[in-house]
């Protein structure tokens, strides 16, 4: 036990004396969560639009006022003719143009006739779609409130409610994802690099020749990273709660247990990678290409798994991050108990046991 403590102490010297790993350990989580929280966002805010108001009557003016009043749009320009629309888009200053027909007010009373046109810059289709929907809803709302008119009879009036994320804050979606990526990065990449570093500089040989058991060596390498990963997880949760006001609906107990489980899964992946690579560079490349990319792309973090082609959906099943994201979304956003995510937990446990077994076996082969 004393030898083990000495080992862990040495490991912390390595970590705290290496500026690069310190940065990855503590800079990355904060930078990532702030980036994803503030910069990358699915919401639209302050979108510049232009208006082509050929009607110039009471109704059109009221709608324009409503558009201006919403926090989503800035009316940047008033166009005079259709010809100017394309130029406006080409200049790239506006993302959408709203045009009103000459007989807008008269036609407003008759359903089925086009009264208002929304033209969007679809170089980014998602944003274009969202803008269209937002403008639509402002117009429909105006119709209902100011004209006391029912929506056109052929339309089904749907009323939507967003569960678990009522304000559609994209940071809610990113926090579980970022947490997953960070834990994966810190646990798998950092451990694999730190183990291969010992191989590269030759100290691993000395350790293997020493009376230390290989299992003690591995445990000594891994324990500091479990500790640091947990600290990272706590920092991420604190940031999301206090900076982004994200509520944690479920139990913190399960959140910690599941995070710990995922950390161990990632660590066993890290050990496995270190048995496969003999240089730090290889370990880093395998971690980045083999772990980070699938974790970001195939885990459902950014792209929904349901809309992937079937083969990719199958691959996503073997990505541990997918299951962890489902679990922490359930805990953080839905606030459900263990009975709702025991299956996913079981899958992670089985994966972890398999990976640990495999890496221990690999190590033994290397020693034989």
């Amino acid at each position, binding site marked *: 036990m*004393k*030898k083990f403590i*000495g*080992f862990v*102490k*040495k490991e912390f*010297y*390595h970590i705290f*004396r*290496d500026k690069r790993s310190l940065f990855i350990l503590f800079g990355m989580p904060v930078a990532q969560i702030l980036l994803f929280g503030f910069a990358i966002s699915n919401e639209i805010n302050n979108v510049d639009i232009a208006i082509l108001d050929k009607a110039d009557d009471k109704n059109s003016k009221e709608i324009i006022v409503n558009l201006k009043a919403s926090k989503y749009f800035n009316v940047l320009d008033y166009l005079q003719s259709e010809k100017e629309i394309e130029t406006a888009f080409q200049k790239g200053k506006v993302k959408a143009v709203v045009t009103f027909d000459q007989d807008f007010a008269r036609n407003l009373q008759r359903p089925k006739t086009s009264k208002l046109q929304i033209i969007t810059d679809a170089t980014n289709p998602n944003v274009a779609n969202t803008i269209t929907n937002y403008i639509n809803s402002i117009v429909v709302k105006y119709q209902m409130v100011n004209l006391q008119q029912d929506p056109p009879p052929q339309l089904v009036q749907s009323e939507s409610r967003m569960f678990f994320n009522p304000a559609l804050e994209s940071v809610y979606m990113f926090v579980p994802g970022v947490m997953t990526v960070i834990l994966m990065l810190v646990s798998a990449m950092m451990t694999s690099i730190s183990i291969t570093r010992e191989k590269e*500089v*030759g*100290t691993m*040989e*000395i*350790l*293997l*020749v*020493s*009376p*230390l058991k290989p299992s003690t060596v591995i445990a000594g390498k891994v324990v500091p990273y479990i500790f640091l990963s947990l600290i990272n997880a706590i920092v991420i949760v604190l940031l999301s709660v206090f900076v982004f006001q994200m509520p944690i609906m479920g139990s913190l107990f399960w959140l910690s247990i599941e995070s710990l489980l995922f950390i161990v899964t990632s660590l066993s992946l890290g050990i496995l990678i270190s048995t496969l690579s003999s240089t730090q560079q290889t370990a880093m490349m395998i971690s980045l290409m083999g772990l980070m990319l699938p974790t970001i792309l195939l885990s459902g973090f950014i792209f929904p798994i349901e809309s992937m082609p079937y083969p990719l959906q199958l691959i996503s099943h073997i990505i541990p991050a997918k299951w962890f994201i489902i679990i922490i979304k359930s805990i953080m956003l839905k606030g459900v108990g263990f009975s709702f995510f025991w299956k996913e937990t079981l899958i992670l446990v089985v994966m972890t046991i398999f990976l640990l077994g495999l890496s221990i076996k690999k190590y033994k082969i290397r*020693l*034989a």
Partner: protein
Amino acid sequence: METTIKATNLTKSFGDFTAVDKLNFEVEKGEIFGFLGANGAGKTTAMKMLIGISKPTAGDAMVANYKVSTQADLVKKNIGYMSQKFALYDDLNIKENIQFFGGIYGLNAKTLQQKYQQVVENLGLENYVKQLVKNLPLGLKQKLAFSVALLHQPKVVFLDEPTGGVDPITRRQFWELIYEAADRGTTIFVTTHYMDEAEYCDRISMMVDGKIKALDTPKALKKEFGAETLNEVFLNLAR
């Protein structure tokens, strides 16, 4: 004399390939034993078996009175090892390295402190105690690595090409440390590519294709092969 290493038909094969073929030799206490051979001759494989990190396919060896095949853990406790790569932690200082490496052999804090002062004094490292090991000159690093390998007073020290990349003067100084250790009764088992180094050994063995082709004192070997230098002996055998 007491025997500290005794190999009996020590063999290692990987599939059909026999890397080490029935080695038989003995090394006595306090002896400096040179283990020579071309690259790929099986030196490293043989050494790995002797230090207990690789199991023999057949035969066995006694190292410090323990069998490498079944008592590898006890063998490891009683040997020291230094490899061709400089193998201390660069980002730790001298004291931290000594504490760590001594600690994994179970030395207590008091002994470690004593050893630390002793090493600093012997090697004249006073000016470097506050620095990380990466800032030490290569020659000093190697001497320090050797002293670290001796911390737990092992019966045998295995040196795997210990002086690679070092100038002749430093190499000479390094060998003085080796002689001192041997005089205190530590057995030295050293692999090398430098023939001048081989001359310093009490006895040398030359390995070719997994077998020991010659084993004797440098002087006797030169006489046996009618050669002026060990280099000629080596070239004769390896061809």
